[in-house]
């Protein structure tokens, strides 16, 4: 780490950001909602679209906004490599979009019956990050979740949303 933090000597796999397909599919998968069905493409933003992102309809005239925001290339262009950009509009999708809000609601629903607050956080970390939460992470989560509930979204839904929006979920080391 000290000698070559930028991995010029390739001592580990380069950190990779999930593509829009990978990210959206992962979100659906962890919510237990990803459908295996193949077949004809459909609109990506359809609220009933639980299929893999690769089945989203791609239009040359007007590329789907979500795909476009997350660096899916213009379908008219030859793109040998996708750009990897970081824009506020992408983050707004993670914060406010109906898709994400519906998913965190489903996610919370699934975990509700898994036991107490601590058990739910451990389960969430396992499903999203493939690891157990550190003690401080568990404590921070409990502090957040034990605060008074609010209208609109439950505490766990808000917590789940930030896990989905976190860098750890978006990047593979």
């Amino acid at each position: 780490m000290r000698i070559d933090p930028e991995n010029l000597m390739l001592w580990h796999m380069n950190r990779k950001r999930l593509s829009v397909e990978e990210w959206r599919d992962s979100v659906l998968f962890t919510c237990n909602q990803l459908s295996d069905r193949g077949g004809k493409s459909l609109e990506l933003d359809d609220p009933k679209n639980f299929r893999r992102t690769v089945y989203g309809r791609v239009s040359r005239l007007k590329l789907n906004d979500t795909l476009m925001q997350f660096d899916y290339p213009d379908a008219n262009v030859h793109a040998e490599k996708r750009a990897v950009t970081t824009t506020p509009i992408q983050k707004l999708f993670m914060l406010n979009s109906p898709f994400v809000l519906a998913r965190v609601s489903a996610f919370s629903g699934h975990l509700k019956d898994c036991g107490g607050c601590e058990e739910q956080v451990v389960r969430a970390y396992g499903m999203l990050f493939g690891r157990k939460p550190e003690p401080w992470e568990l404590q921070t989560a409990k502090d957040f979740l034990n605060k008074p509930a609010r209208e609109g979204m439950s505490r766990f839904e808000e917590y789940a949303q930030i896990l989905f929006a976190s860098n750890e979920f978006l990047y593979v080391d």
Partner: protein
Amino acid sequence: MWTNQNFFRRQLPLGMNRREMLQKMCTGFGMVGLAGLLRPESLFASAAPDPHIPQRAKRAIFLFLNGGPSHVDTFDPKPALRKYEGQQPDGALFKKSTGSGFMSSPFEFKKCGQSGIELSELLPNIGRVIDDCCVIRSMKTDVPNHEPALIQMHTGNVQPIRPSMGSWLLYGLGTENQNLPGYVVLRPSTKIVVGPALWSSGFLPAQFQATSVVTSDMTVEKLVANIRNPKIGFDEQREQLDLLNTLNEHHLAARNGDAQLEAEIQTMETAFQMQREALNVFDISKEPESTRKMYGQSTFARSCLLARRLVESGVRFVTVYYTSSDNQPWDTHADNDNRHRKLCADADLAAAALISDLKSRGLLDDTLVIVSGEFGRTPYAENRKEDKQKATPAGRDHHHTAFSTLLAGGGVKGGMVYGASDELGMHAVENPVHVHDLHATILYLMGLNHEKLTYRYAGRDFRLTDVHGNVAHALIA
């Protein structure tokens, strides 16, 4: 097995790590610097304001009149048309004339302002601000059909896929306010010829694409997608984000300050701020009634007012499209005169209001306003069979070898006519300004060298003006 990115890092000045480079080379993640880091080859393609060119305009508003307004009825007086009324045009024409021949304008042209520029009676309000404007009467483009002409006016090439002018400007200059999109497109409906290809970033990185806003419903939440969480308020979101930041900072620390991870953190903050700012800026109900009346009541008028608010808050480039239930209302193949009368009543008021509003706020000097369509209309009549049957008055067909464009502010000489068309308005004869030349000039006014603002794609360095374009220095103050 060196990736492009690794190669680029080795070219950094010794001792400078990526964090320092981020700090030194860009003042925010909306700027060009990040684009360079993410696509290394573009950073060294001189994507920055040219130090030899004085930047006169910091922002631009393009009022686009879809369909092609008739120049001989608006900006370009052609009394000779009366002399040749009814005669067929000779010479090579793109399409044979099947109508009744040359058709003079029924509208009276008057000298306006102190400069005495002649404008048609359809443009009384622009006439009042004409001393701040430059009328280009010698515009020309390559193809007299909507799609190629639209694409050429927006991207510099008649075929699609190239980045739009707004994207090039963002790429070259970045944006002033990172809490707002840098390039915004305002249109009354989703119906528009060609569509998103006109404001696409093409092969430039995605952050240079426009944020397209449909302005038929001016309710702020409807204007920008995902601008607000429908379930919780800002305070609650702030709490969420504070926790997210804690998690992300720890994640970052364990990975030795990876610049890309840091970018994600910063951008999340920007997104949060953008919500509040966008909700404020996009809300024209915050404008006093008197201002809203000055622009007019139509969707186009409201969009012009919104455009002013946007550039005032640091948006780099705004395009306002004049479409309606008709996706190109200015395309008057029939009933040219009546339809132009109605269209100008709307556009003239709004455009002039925008110019004088910018001026009174001290913004006109560094804000460039462009008013144009994709081409002009024939000085000779078009009488289509179906129109003759219904006794609809004559129209004018597409005309690409001469048309007019209005420029105002942003370093343009006011009270000036640039170039001229022949006595019948058929061809640009004096100081012709091709669309490429217009683009070169706009880039120059914004402080960019059109020949140096390039991006390497598919093996060659592309630019907005491709391999063409000359700056029209004479119209620069």
